[in-house]
């Protein structure tokens, strides 16, 4: 059995824990519950050529109160950068965390996830910024932890990229 550690990185209230809950337990709650520290979950992903046990480290969100300690990333084979599509500033936080993560674990596979895709009317993320990141080779997916759209795909894509790395 192949086992891979991945980390969830992003600003506060972008939906990291909700994505993990949707992915691991198939549940979603509208109530925002902030994360302190790290919560470790596990789920197997069946890929066409392998089965991968993902050990998901759901890290607390970064803001003025708490900076993410990059030591949590040690041993990670990849990470999901999560931004809240309805809060433009969370993309900046994700980009900053990406730079810190690269300094810690090097160039491991990652995915930028624009979450809360169900809130299309409140969408703030600039398509040009996302397109520019896409041109730099970033994989970007829209997800909704609420509806489940794109969630399985995001984790499976990261798992495939980690196996190829």
């Amino acid at each position: 059995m192949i086992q891979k550690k991945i980390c969830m990185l992003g600003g506060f209230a972008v939906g990291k824990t909700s994505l993990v809950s949707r992915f691991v337990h198939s549940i979603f709650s509208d109530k925002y519950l902030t994360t302190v520290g790290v919560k470790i979950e596990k789920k197997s992903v069946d890929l066409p050529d392998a089965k991968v046990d993902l050990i998901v480290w759901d890290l607390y969100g970064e803001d003025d109160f708490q900076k993410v300690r990059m030591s949590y990333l040690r041993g990670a084979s990849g990470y999901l950068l999560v931004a809240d599509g309805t809060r433009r500033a969370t993309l900046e936080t994700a980009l900053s965390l990406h730079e810190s993560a690269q300094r810690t674990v090097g160039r491991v596979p990652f995915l930028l996830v624009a979450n809360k895709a169900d809130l299309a009317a409140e969408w703030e993320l600039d398509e040009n910024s996302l397109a520019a990141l896409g041109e730099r080779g970033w994989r970007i997916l829209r997800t909704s932890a609420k509806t489940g759209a794109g969630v399985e795909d995001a984790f499976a894509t990261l798992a495939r990229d980690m196996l190829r790395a």
Partner: protein
Amino acid sequence: MADDLLTVLLPAIEIAAFERRADGSFTSIAPPPPWFSRLVADETFPFLGHILEEAVDFWRQSRSGMQEWGPCAESDGAGREFHYKVVAVSANGRQFLLFELDTASDRMREVLQAARERALAAGSRGDEQAGAAAAQRDVRRMGAEMRELLRRLAASGPTAEQLTVIEALTKKCDALLAGFDDAVQWSPLSEIALRLRPPKV
């Protein structure tokens, strides 16, 4: 006697304690407190991941001292989240791994929850403020266009009665713009946003 004391004391203070043997396995030195059963089915602690690797490095390098990791979050049977810390201890050549219930992080979470909810609400108020400013710009632009149309109408040779209507409309337009500026400047933002929102049909 000391061991008897530990078997009573450690669970009472919500600490699960293990000694690491030379072969790398762990043995419990006191009955673990009930909360610990949520974490493990065995005593190899695979969920710890790199924490255990770092603890092993610490034990290799240190004859005495301790190193701490966490807080880590877990849910109890009722779905309530609790926090714990992991502590590696090296003492007199012996190696220990402790899991300590971290109620301080539970309290920290309550504080952060309130602070972040306020930050989210403030962000939403910021959006309303930006919306109000944009609406104000739109209204000023439309007001200027209306005044220009009225000016052209007044210059096109209207009748005395039409001119009276044009002058009245111009005054109304100015009053409307001034009233809108006052409303944006003085009213609470949420009230402004409410006023700007089109009525539900």
